[in-house]
């Protein structure tokens, strides 16, 4: 009999000046969602059902950037994406460009189980959601007042630059832009993630990785994507092998600068390093975060088939929580 374990995240790259009450709120949501997963695992729920249930809960809470509370595209609308993977048989499902489905992760699961495909996007995904009878809501349900303000700030900062790896030049009066142009990675407000000063970048993607007491692994990830993203932009979250991966050895969910995660096929690489280099979970996670992430900022959570949990990130903070069968439980933000 294997031992169950669960890890969750609410995004990597946290403004070090995030007000105390916001930190507390985020931790409360993480603790509640983690507890939901723990209760399900204790009741013998399969890993795949647990990751879906936990991510649904994270999507439904406006605190994080997925489902309600999703970041807004350039046009002010919400375009959500999600993926889910079952380590047994490596089955997977993914969706992008979802604008009315209350819980995109559940749509991703339907794609996996009820369609001949593994990835549906935009109108095709919406149509499939209706065929499947999933709960749909008006796009405005997902839009929070705070995110409307964030989009305005992001636009003022002229963010999502031509190339976010090139330091900002010709700064105007916006203080956020001035902060960004310091490009002082890893130190306070100067950190830029995906072209956004970290104070605007805000919490990101949510995800969950679980191994159940039968040793089955599963992972799921869901996001609203980048604030002020171009309409039609796809990030790492729906991409199997980048944002999400699960096999017999482990389950992984990533968050952070999507483009850096895609280039490094980060989630699959944790599994590949375990499989091909024979490293244990935490060493595989450290290796991937330190060696595979080029100049990008990201973080990830992972569980192994043998019941270990691990996480890693190379930026300031990651909203995260984890628990194992032997009673260990942790919710944290900073290193």
């Amino acid at each position: 009999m294997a031992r169950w374990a669960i890890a969750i995240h609410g995004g990597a790259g946290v403004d070090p000046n995030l007000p105390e009450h916001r930190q507390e709120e985020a931790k409360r949501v993480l603790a509640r969602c983690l507890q939901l997963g723990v209760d399900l695992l204790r009741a013998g729920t399969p890993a795949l059902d647990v990751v879906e249930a936990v991510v649904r809960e994270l999507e439904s809470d406006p605190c994080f950037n997925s489902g309600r509370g999703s970041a807004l595209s350039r046009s002010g609308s919400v375009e959500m994406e999600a993926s889910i993977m079952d380590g047994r048989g490596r089955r997977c499902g993914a969706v992008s460009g979802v604008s009315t489905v209350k819980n995109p992760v559940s749509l991703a699961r339907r794609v996996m189980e009820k369609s001949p495909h593994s990835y549906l996007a935009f109108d095709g995904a919406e149509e499939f959601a209706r065929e499947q009878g999933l709960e749909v809501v008006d796009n405005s349900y997902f839009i929070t007042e705070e995110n409307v303000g964030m989009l305005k700030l992001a636009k003022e900062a002229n963010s999502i630059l031509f190339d976010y790896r090139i330091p900002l030049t010709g700064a105007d009066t916006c203080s956020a832009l001035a902060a960004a142009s310091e490009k002082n990675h890893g130190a306070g407000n100067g950190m830029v993630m995906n072209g956004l000063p970290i104070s605007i970048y805000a919490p990101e993607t949510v995800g969950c990785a679980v191994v159940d007491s039968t040793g089955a692994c599963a992972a799921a990830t869901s996001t609203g994507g980048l604030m002020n993203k171009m309409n039609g932009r796809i990030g790492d979250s729906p991409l199997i092998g980048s944002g999400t991966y699960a096999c017999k050895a482990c389950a992984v969910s990533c968050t952070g600068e999507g483009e850096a995660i895609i280039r490094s096929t980060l989630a699959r690489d944790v599994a590949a390093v375990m499989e091909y280099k024979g490293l244990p979970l935490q060493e595989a996670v450290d290796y991937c975060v330190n060696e595979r992430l080029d100049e990008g900022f990201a973080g990830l959570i992972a569980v192994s088939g043998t019941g270990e949990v691990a996480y890693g990130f190379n930026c300031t903070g990651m909203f995260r929580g984890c628990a194992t069968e032997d009673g260990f439980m942790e919710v944290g933000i900073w290193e």
Partner: protein
Amino acid sequence: MGWAIALHGGAGDIPRSLPPERREPRLATLRRCLDLGVAALQAGRTALDVVELVVRELENCPHFNAGRGSVLTTDGTVEMEASIMDGTTMGCGAVSGVSTVVNAISLARLVMDKTPHIYLAFQGAEAFARDQGVETVDPSHFITEENIDRLRQAKQANRVQIDYTQPMEGQPPKDDNSRTGTVGCVAVDASRNLASATSTGGMVNKMAGRIGDTPVIGAGTYANALCAVSATGKGEAIIRHTVARDVAALMEHQGLTLRDAAEHVVAGVPRGNFGLVAVSVSGEISMPHNTTGMFRACATEGGYSEVGIWPDDGGET
């Protein structure tokens, strides 16, 4: 050593009885595209430019499932996708749901070069194409009589079923690389830069909105400092096995040669599902497939070249 190039026009159950009128135009296109790529490499073009150039040519050929000649969705429309990756910078670009852009691969390149993102899809990708002023046409340009027939046959055979793991009913069309067709090109140039590009119309009778492996970096396309890989076949299998990245991962993490890594990956995917073309930084080429055949071609600076469909189609030195 030196430059090397490999390209494919899809893997599948290609019967040896494929009549000459279906075989020859495809072989001629492969030869022409190979010559084009070789000439560009000899002229000192970078691997990235060469793979884009060759895939554009393959897209323009109506006999392969990409660009003009793309297979049709269940609605009878064309939704093309493509991706490109530069192994030197690890930069990459991808598009899905493209319906009016003549060369989807060049749009993927523009996403890589001109946006802060890697991947744009559907209306957003189309709007970006218009911003960039790339050549667009009416969607009917991409639709061939042959593909209208293929869709009808597929619908009759109910080839895209609710559970694709169940056996398919009905007879596959006679030249069937339609379910699994894709075009792709990998190259290493004389300066040891690697690049990969892949483009497709997807699978015949696919649901509207379906995304396959082709635009997914790590699945259909991957390149780094060690190798460049372009995969073709059943997209869902390629995605879950992260096929293109896995060839590179085996070289990187286990020290395998390109050939051993590629064969290991092919052996791990259910038979009949896929093939790939790959080149290494040292100019090695591998083109394994576990289907009946794969439309493929390759050449090296050392003078080796090969154009073929079935496994025993030999090369020339």
